[in-house]
């Protein structure tokens, strides 16, 4: 190995960060050469079918599996009793208070079921079809119990979801700026506003229940052959899954290998440790054979966790000019039947975000988490922060209406000015950077704000049947979960660090191992760009490995917009260690002092000379190890574990124009502009994709999606016929831009982007809807803003806030068995009168 001549400047690799690199992941995804969990077939593999409770709350009186066991090719039929010693238990990682009531959550229920969809028995058969056939033959008898369904009624303990707990109230968690020393006393602020003729707004908003509805149904394969038990699962969290399985089943962690292969979306919905995973593990161990379980969409909608589901009671105090003096937030949060992995932590994550981008002098937050007999809830894109952002951004529009100024004006009066960063908020967070003025100015310009306001006036004055509304949302979020010390203070059961390894291969290629396991985010591409820049190697030469606990043994996985800002930083640190080690070798090979070396474009050069050596050459030299500095370990490979010291705080201004057909209530999105400040961008293409997708999920909460239960606790919106995901024909093209204030909390200056669109867009849309009809006396329309709600609000000149009727239309032939729940008689009498 000899040092080579320095190459001409032109050949230096182009900087990768900031390039619109096409994704490395795509080749296999666009050609169908993918490895989804359900694709896995192993010799002798057995298949599971679940028997699920049709009742929301019932005692199991008997289970007869005799007939099912005689069904062709059935290997076993088991009940919770059969698995009592081996099935383990599902954990809650975040008990938000020491006295939190947490019902025991068994994978297969034994005595009692607490929601419709809970598993009571499992069939193991040689094919999935035969397992399903036998599952139909399992005879379960239930004694139905009264079910706690409505959140407010459940909070009053009228019916108990878990009678043995004595109350549905799981935990009560409070943050008070007066007590924390981060601000004043909110009750005093409210009292003063009342006494001094200021403004006190009292509002109650409903965060409807949503379903993450990732496109790939969950699937788990467990292979018990071999020394380690191998678990493939469609999960966001292979590392947490491995830990929790070990902690609750008695299997040593070292005997467990968890693999998340290609995973088809998550959005928080696969941030869970699930009964189905525990059951598949238990039955693979019981049978000694590889076992697979893949859920149907119907099963996914009733059993995979749901999101949101809060009542938000809000009191905002301000002076006559609209300067906010205090905000009080009282939440009820529906946990569903069990306290899930993050559970009550979801609303707690929102506690720090109600004050948003504003300088509120006083703030009080309290959440009561409540158990009900419905599907459990947990993280869904944004997890707590969309709920908070919705509430405050709706309130700021209401405040603007009260004061009689433009919604942007009221925000400007209250927001943190760019020269005031870093800024410690009333919730106790230190915002490191941001520029709300710049993002807002750019968004207004792109939107044509003044022109659209003028059109709105014209339509109002002419009494146009189609009215125009403009909605504003100026959001921020805390992302990059999370500083471990903060999580510890909040009683979360784990840390928030991330791990990375960078391995220089003998051929000069680079293997990068990350603990952040992707499921659509494009880590393989973005992380390659970071490492390519850091090491000065070609983008194509970097291979990113993830999602297998034997390949990536340390990690805390992907959620909370953390992969880039936490996982990416770990990569930077590991890469820098590689460079440091390589530098020692370079100095040795170049016979120069390390202090005289420069590193740029993948080459070490001796300052003031044309002598240099490429990092790939050093990798080969280290592999050969023939000529290394005395005592040097022959390896450049490096690890880093990064624990952030602070969150980071992307922000943005979103503007939405909605047209409302006042005759029918129909809603049409006319225009959507967003300008987000997410710090430095690694790959603009991936970022725009995250924004578009996030926007539609947030817009869908505003307009379409809702998990509706009927009076008996059956999920009515239990298929894609009734749980309305928008299609391409229901959405529009977006106008997306960025302003940039680099984050100061990581080397690359990046901020999270995964959740931004979702967090910001929901209030922008609802504000636009309300704005379109505010002149008709309307101050609120409940989500989802259906045409019917809008129409009723217009009819009543009030709030369109009635709950959704719990009935699904029977679109499949009744004579073939699908009865539906639609009321086809209610209209009869009225109709006869006409």
């Amino acid at each position, binding site marked *: 190995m000899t040092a080579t001549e320095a190459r001409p400047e032109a050949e230096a690799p182009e900087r990768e960060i900031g390039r619109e690199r096409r994704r490395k992941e795509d080749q296999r995804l666009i050609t169908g050469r993918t490895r989804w969990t359900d694709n896995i077939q192993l010799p002798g593999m057995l298949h599971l079918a679940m028997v699920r409770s049709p009742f929301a709350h019932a005692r199991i009186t008997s289970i007869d599996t005799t007939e099912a066991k005689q069904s062709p090719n059935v290997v076993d039929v088991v009940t919770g009793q059969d698995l009592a010693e081996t099935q383990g238990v599902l954990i809650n990682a975040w008990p938000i208070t020491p006295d939190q009531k947490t019902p025991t959550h068994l994978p297969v229920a034994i005595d009692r079921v607490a929601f419709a969809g809970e598993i009571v028995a499992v069939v193991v058969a040689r094919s*999935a*079809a035969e397992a*399903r*056939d036998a599952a*139909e033959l399992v005879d379960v008898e239930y004694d139905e119990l009264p079910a706690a369904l409505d959140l407010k009624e459940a909070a009053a303990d009228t019916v108990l979801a878990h009678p043995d707990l004595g109350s549905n109230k799981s935990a009560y968690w409070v943050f008070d700026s007066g007590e924390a020393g981060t601000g004043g006393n909110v009750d005093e602020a409210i009292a003063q506003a009342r006494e001094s003729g200021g403004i006190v707004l009292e509002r109650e908003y409903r965060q409807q229940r949503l379903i993450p509805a990732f496109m790939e149904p969950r699937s788990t394969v467990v292979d018990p052959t071999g020394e380690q038990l191998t678990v493939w699962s469609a999960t966001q969290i292979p590392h947490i899954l491995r830990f929790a399985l070990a902690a609750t089943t008695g299997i040593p962690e070292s005997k467990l290998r968890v693999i998340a292969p290609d995973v088809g979306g998550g959005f928080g919905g696969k941030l869970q440790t699930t009964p189905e995973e525990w059951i598949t593990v238990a039955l693979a161990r019981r049978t000694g054979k590889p076992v697979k379980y893949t859920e*149907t*969409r*119907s099963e996914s909608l009733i059993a995979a966790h749901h999101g949101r589901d809060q009542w938000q009671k809000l009191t905002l105090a301000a002076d006559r000019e609209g300067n906010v003096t205090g905000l009080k937030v009282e939440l009820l949060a529906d946990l569903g039947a069990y306290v899930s992995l993050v559970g009550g932590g979801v609303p707690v994550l929102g506690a720090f975000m109600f004050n948003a981008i504003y300088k509120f002098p006083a703030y009080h937050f309290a959440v009561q988490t409540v158990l009900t007999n419905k599907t459990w809830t947990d993280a869904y894109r944004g997890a707590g922060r969309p709920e908070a952002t919705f509430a405050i951004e709706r309130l700021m529009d209401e405040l603007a209406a009260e004061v009689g100024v433009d919604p942007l004006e009221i925000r400007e009066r209250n927001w943190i000015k760019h020269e005031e960063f870093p800024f410690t908020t009333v919730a106790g967070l230190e915002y490191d950077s941001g520029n709300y003025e710049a993002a807002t100015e750019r968004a207004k310009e792109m939107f044509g704000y003044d022109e659209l306001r003028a059109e709105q006036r014209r339509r109002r004055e002419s009494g146009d049947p189609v009215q125009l509304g403009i909605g504003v949302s100026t959001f921020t979020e805390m992302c990059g979960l999370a500083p471990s010390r903060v999580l510890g203070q909040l009683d979360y059961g784990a840390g928030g660090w991330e791990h990375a390894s960078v391995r220089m291969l003998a051929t000069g290629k680079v293997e990068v191992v990350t603990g952040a396991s992707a499921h659509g985010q494009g880590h393989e591409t973005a992380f390659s760009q970071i490492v390519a820049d850091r090491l000065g190697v070609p983008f194509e030469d970097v291979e990113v490995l993830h999602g297998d606990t034997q390949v990536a043994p340390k990690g805390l996985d992907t959620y909370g917009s953390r992969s880039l800002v936490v996982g990416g930083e770990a990569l930077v640190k590991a890469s820098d260690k590689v460079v440091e080690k390589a530098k020692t070798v370079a100095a040795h090979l170049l016979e120069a002092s390390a202090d005289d070396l420069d590193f740029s474009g993948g080459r070490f050069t001796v300052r003031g000379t044309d002598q240099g050596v490429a990092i790939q050459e050093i990798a080969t030299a280290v592999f050969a190890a023939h000529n290394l500095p005395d005592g040097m370990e022959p390896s450049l490979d490096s690890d880093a574990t990064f624990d952030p010291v602070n969150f980071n705080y992307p922000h943005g201004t979103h503007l939405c124009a909605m047209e409302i057909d006042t*005759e*029918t209530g*129909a809603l049409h999105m006319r225009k959507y502009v967003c300008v987000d400040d997410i710090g430095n961008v690694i790959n603009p293409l991936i970022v725009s994709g995250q924004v578009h997708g996030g926007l539609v999920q947030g817009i869908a909460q505003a*307009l*379409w999606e809702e998990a*509706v239960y009927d009076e008996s606790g059956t999920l*009515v*919106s239990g*298929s894609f*016929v*009734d749980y*309305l*995901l*928008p*299609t391409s*024909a*229901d959405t529009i093209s977006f106008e997306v831009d960025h302003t940039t204030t680099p984050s100061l909390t990581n080397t690359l200056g990046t901020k999270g982007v995964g959740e931004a669109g979702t967090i910001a867009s929901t209030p922008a849309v609802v504000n636009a809807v309300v704005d379109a009809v505010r002149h008709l006396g309307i101050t609120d329309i409940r989500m989802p803003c*259906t*045409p*019917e709600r809008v*129409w*009723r609000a217009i009819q009543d000149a009030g709030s369109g806030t009635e709950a*959704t*009727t*719990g*009935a*699904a*239309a*029977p*679109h*499949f*032939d*009744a*004579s*073939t*068995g*699908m009865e*539906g*729940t*639609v*009321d*086809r008689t*209610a*209209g*009869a009498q*009225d*109709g*006869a009168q*006409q």
Partner: protein
Amino acid sequence: MIPAQFDYLAPTTVEEALAALAQHGDEAKILAGGQSLLPVLRMRLNAPEMVIDLGKITSLRGVRDDGDAIVVGAMTQHSVVGSDPLVAEHAALVSKAVEHLADVQIRHRGTFGGALAHADPAGDLGAPALALGAQFVIQGPGGTRTVPAEEFFVDLFETAIGEDEILTEVRLPKHTGWGAHYEKFVRVAHQWPIVAVAAAVRLEGGTIAEARVGLTNMGNTPVRAHAVEQALVGQPATPDGVRDAAARAAEGTNPPSDLNGDADYRRHLATVLTRRAVLTAAGATG
């Protein structure tokens, strides 16, 4: 996701199909395009012992001109009906309704006769068929009979087709030169209509000489809005001319209440959508 076991026959003639139906009786289910039946089987909402697939009976496919009517074979796919020039010329209302029925893939498989025989009151074909006065040709062991649309739709998912009979073709009386429009109201594109209105009008000068209006999802069967039709005659094809007639659209209807809207909202929608459908059919806007 996986249907229960069933036996399967794919006859190549109607006679063979009728024989199979006679043999298996109510244990058999007819499979046309399968776009509604297969989800039912997959979710195990039903488990017939025998499925009789009409897909190989080529005589049931196609569109032909038969004097005063356009005849659509029961097994003709929606996409074929939707792009058929005879249907477009003489029964444009059907073309319009098919255009946005379900989605492209379902229109490629789903059949005209299958959808009508399924008789979902939210289905898109019932109202236009009713409005145009379609005749349903039904074949059974005793031969062939023809049932007018008013008698074909009996109740929710129930038609005049007997258990031992098969719908073979649908005769659409020619409405050549009529303006037509199908106004469909949905929350998301892939939904069944919350309410839809099928309207066809014949103009003389700027005046409506004749009108045909059918309503989707306003009762247990498709509904013919006779009151609207009568009130439209002689009216100018203008928003003011049509408004009062359209306001009668919900008369005598019995719409459902469900996730997407209560009955009173549907009644209101029917009036607005009828006005719009008629005006668009007449080439006016409103």
